[in-house]
């Protein structure tokens, strides 16, 4: 069932992870005893209906949230017990986020948006901008660095987000419905960009989607339902 990878190269390792939320008097179990390993360099698609727990999984993998039970090791480090600022540092160095709604800073140039993670890792201005220019060039937006988000198309905005995700050489890209706000042609462009980053730069890509066509770009498909993994299989190329 799981992809045949060497245990030492596991980048992401969740062991019996559960997540519970209090909702009024009810307790909602968003993740129920999930164990999952993802190796460096994988391209994983996560599918499931809304409320299946896939967003909670992404938040935990992305260190935006911590498990209620179980352990999560990211790149060999147990992140389940880390404080707020330590999690921020790990997100900054290890995770690149790509959101459905882009989440770019308004009234801020593409270049500044891409350089944002470097601002918080303490890089100096020249280094920030030269690396941000490289990242923009990688996603094919070298000529748009001074454009603000509202001057860019949806596909271009999403590419700025991807540039922001790779600017700090994070080993993992977490993409939550990255094509949800895009037309299908643009969606294909974005997915091809992920494929290229995965193949050429060896970046581990995890894409959450509910569209089967989008999920097909991955080489491994994990299906979620009611907070549990119901299937985990390699996809034919």
């Amino acid at each position, binding site marked *: 069932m799981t992809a045949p990878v060497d245990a030492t190269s596991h980048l992401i390792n969740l062991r019996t992870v559960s997540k519970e939320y209090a909702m009024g008097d009810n307790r909602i179990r968003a993740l129920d005893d999930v164990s999952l390993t993802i190796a460096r360099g994988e391209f994983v698609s996560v599918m499931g209906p809304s409320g299946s727990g896939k967003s909670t999984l992404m*938040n935990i993998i*992305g260190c*935006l*949230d911590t498990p209620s039970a179980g352990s999560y090791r990211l790149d060999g480090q147990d992140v389940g017990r880390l404080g*707020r*600022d330590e999690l*921020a*540092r790990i*997100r*900054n*160095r290890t995770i690149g*986020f790509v*959101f459905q709604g882009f*989440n*770019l*800073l*308004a*009234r*801020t140039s593409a270049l500044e948006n891409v350089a*944002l*993670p470097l*601002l*918080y*890792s*303490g890089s100096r*201005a020249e280094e920030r901008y030269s690396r941000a220019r490289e990242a923009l060039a990688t996603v094919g937006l070298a000529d748009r660095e001074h454009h603000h988000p509202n001057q860019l198309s949806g596909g271009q905005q999403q590419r700025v987000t991807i540039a*922001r995700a790779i600017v*700090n050489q994070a080993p993992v890209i977490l993409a939550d419905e990255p094509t949800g706000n895009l037309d299908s042609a643009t969606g294909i462009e974005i997915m091809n960009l992920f494929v290229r980053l995965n193949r050429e730069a060896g970046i581990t890509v995890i894409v959450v989607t509910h569209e089967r066509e989008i999920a097909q770009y991955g080489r491994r498909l994990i299906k979620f339902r009611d907070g549990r993994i119901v299937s985990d299989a390699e996809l034919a190329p």
Partner: protein
Amino acid sequence: MISPASTLTIALRALRANKMRSSLTMLGIIIGVAAVIAMLSIGAAARQRIADEINSMGSNLLIVFSGSTSSGGARMGTGTDPTISLEDVEAMLRECPSVLDAAPMHSGSAQIVYGNRNWSTGIIGTTASVLHINAWEMLHGRAFTPQDERYSAKVCLLGMTVADELFGAIDPVGRIVRIKHVPFRVLGVLKPKGQSMTGQDQDDVVYVPITTAQRKLFGGTLPGMVRFVMVKATGLHALDQAEQEIVALLRHRHRIGPGQTDDFTVRNLTQMMQIAITLANIMTILLGAIASISLLVGGIGILNLMLVSVTERTREIGIRIAVGAKTWDIRLQFIMEAMTLSLIGGLIGIVLGQAGSIGLCMAAGLPVHVSAAGIALSFGFSAAVGIFFGYYPAHKASLLNPIDALRYE
């Protein structure tokens, strides 16, 4: 950790994004700081004016007034009952160790005539001691000598105003003027002293020897007596001692028994000045406190703006936290925004307040006073206002949950 320069850039960009709102909030701080600066400067100017006044009156002064008379139930005020004699003054100089100098003063008013010009002015009979006590100087000519006083010489010293009115451009020294038809030779002219604190022209006066005043001018009313005595103590700290010595001496000389009231009054000029300075200080503190309230209100404006700003920018904060901003990165960003507002407002306020106070001081005839301490204080205070009122919104922003913040619409 983010660098302060980057934080400042972010703060300026955020403030520029809402120019109208930022400037209105800044206006609150501008008014507050300008009010504080203006009040402190004007207070300092008033204090300076009082200090100048003390120096111009001479320091370490006591005034001893003769008693008061009553006429048909109407009490006539101090100095109307001539109880102090020239012998009393000599005794003070002789027997009171804390008394450095004393000048008997006997005043009245009269018409003074030179040629076809005349002028009504105050005539004061005194001794040359009055010049030493008050640190007055001669502009032309010389002062009285003890001989002039002993022989009741018909000589006089003119104040600048009198000299101008009677002589104009002519040098008055050595000329003969008539006071109450008595001819007097002008010995000299005093240096101008300007207005007193109550607005009186201190140069509209003629000094004659005390004995001359008593025998030739006002002898009929107060023979051999003086209305008041100006006394200079040996030092500021000897003032109370000098007062006690004078009171004891006069009570003894006037045969006033225990339990009976004095037939004279001693006033301590320095005490009066100290009271005036204390009052000026209280006024400054009061005005400063009222002005500080407007600065406080300005600070609350910042607090309000920052709270609105944090709510509006929840998503931005979420993005920043998601890509790695730490608690203090977010906190610093918002504190820096609040401080930028309050410091720019503070600077404009300092300039306006200083300009306003210079204008007011010039209009009110007060010495212009630029208070460096006041400027430093206001600048520090506006920075503190920014930090104080920016901290809570900044703290709130830094503790946002990134998952919720990213979903915020």
